[in-house]
């Protein structure tokens, strides 16, 4: 009983860490990488407050850590989909504009954004199916 509770708590802590990793990747690192790549002072328009996404990623991470295998796999996929959608909406679908030294510059990064969105979903689906198969074989 105590061992089971300890295992759930440790999985919950790992879930918090995973939520922070997803937040750092999708809300911090990828937008910074896009700004560096374009060399423009890009103003991102997040669909909601970033703290909402932090809470959402942590909640999904904790739920992913303590839920049974198949549900956990689905929640893992959901975290990646939420992250991909954040990138898509924050960058206006990849079309970004900025005023720079007397010029208005518009760059269409939709190819890159679609690659990130598709990549996240594909990795999420493969990861979820692998974990679900592992969970079923364990039962």
């Amino acid at each position: 009983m105590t061992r089971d509770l300890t295992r759930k708590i440790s999985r919950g802590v790992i879930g918090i860490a995973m939520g922070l990793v997803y937040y750092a990747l999708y809300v911090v690192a990828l937008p910074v990488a896009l700004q560096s790549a374009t060399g423009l002072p890009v103003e991102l328009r997040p669909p909601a407050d970033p703290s909402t996404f932090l809470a959402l990623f942590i909640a999904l991470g904790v739920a992913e850590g303590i839920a049974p295998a198949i549900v956990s796999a689905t929640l893992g996929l959901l975290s990646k989909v939420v992250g991909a959608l954040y990138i898509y909406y924050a960058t206006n679908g990849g079309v970004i504009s900025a005023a720079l030294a007397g010029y208005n510059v518009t760059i269409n990064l939709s190819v890159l954004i679609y690659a990130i969105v598709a990549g996240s979903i594909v990795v999420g689906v493969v990861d979820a199916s692998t974990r679900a198969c592992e969970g079923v074989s364990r039962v």
Partner: protein
Amino acid sequence: MRPSIVLALAIGFTIAALLLPLLVFAVEVAQNPTLLGIQVDATVLNQSHVALTVALSYTGTIPLTDVQLMVCNRSMDLGDLHEGATKTVTIPLSVDEAPGLRPSDLGLRFKVMGIYHVEVRAID
């Protein structure tokens, strides 16, 4: 190694490869703001027309494809610009159009290595 980790690494490398030409172009522009030079000259052709000569020069290493010059809602295809390329176009303008020409009437559209659409327009 889990298949999803291998796939994530492969997708990560693909995204990095997609990002690379844009990153190199941005670094080159930051180091040399005159990487893509535009020179505009106007000469009087006759009583009714003025010739606007636009000379484009490019010294970057990343090829720019489908380059289009936009002047007064007209666009001209200039093809591709490679390192060291120079292209000159002459646009006849009527004397009625020429005095009202503003900086924002001149724009440039191109693709960085055929992947990313970029549009640059001067602000009035």
